[in-house]
């Protein structure tokens, strides 16, 4: 798996928001369910627009959703 220095809490945030499914989140941000799954697993870094949409869905700052860790793993 490609080493990403960006982590996310999307899975936990989904469960904290009425156990939202990946499909529901995907529909609300305009991507496929597989893309949401790839983001959660760190296989894909979304664009800024999608990242902000995700934060808007959870009504939380984007830094709460995504964390950037400096330095390679």
């Amino acid at each position: 798996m490609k080493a990403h220095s960006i982590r996310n809490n999307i899975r936990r945030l989904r469960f904290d928001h009425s156990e939202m499914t990946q499909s529901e989140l995907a529909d609300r941000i305009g991507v496929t369910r597989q893309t949401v799954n790839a983001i959660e697993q760190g296989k894909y870094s979304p664009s800024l627009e999608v990242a902000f949409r995700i934060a808007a869905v959870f009504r939380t700052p984007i830094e709460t959703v995504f964390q950037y860790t400096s330095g390679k793993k």
Partner: protein
Amino acid sequence: MTFKEISTGLSVVVLIGVYGYYFAHVGAHEAGGTIGLLSKTVLLVVVLEVALHAALAICHRPERPDERDRLISAKGFRNAYFVMVAGALCAIVQVLAPEVLRGVPFIGGLPPEIAAAHVLVLTLIGATLFNDVSVLAYYRVGV
């Protein structure tokens, strides 16, 4: 798996299967027979691709491509470009110095102009396959 992943996997199987058979038998044909065999091969690929993708579309509703799908497609296309360039160079070598590729299996024994045409066919198939394999890898491993 997304519709795109399954579709790409089907294309890989069809290309390897049909063109693998073609290149295994092309050396046994005269120039005119080669053209006939290639024509039938292309037709078979088209029929198989249409039939399989129609069946897939019935069984698996296609999703609208999103930004990840577009990025993966773009990267696969870029990878295929390198194969196209390498193949085009090989075709140029084949035309200018046919003796260089004389020992190549399947096509080395063909007349130079037929061999050059087959180098180009191989290039197109190789580029398509490399694109498809790249796409599958990006979907599985990440991009």
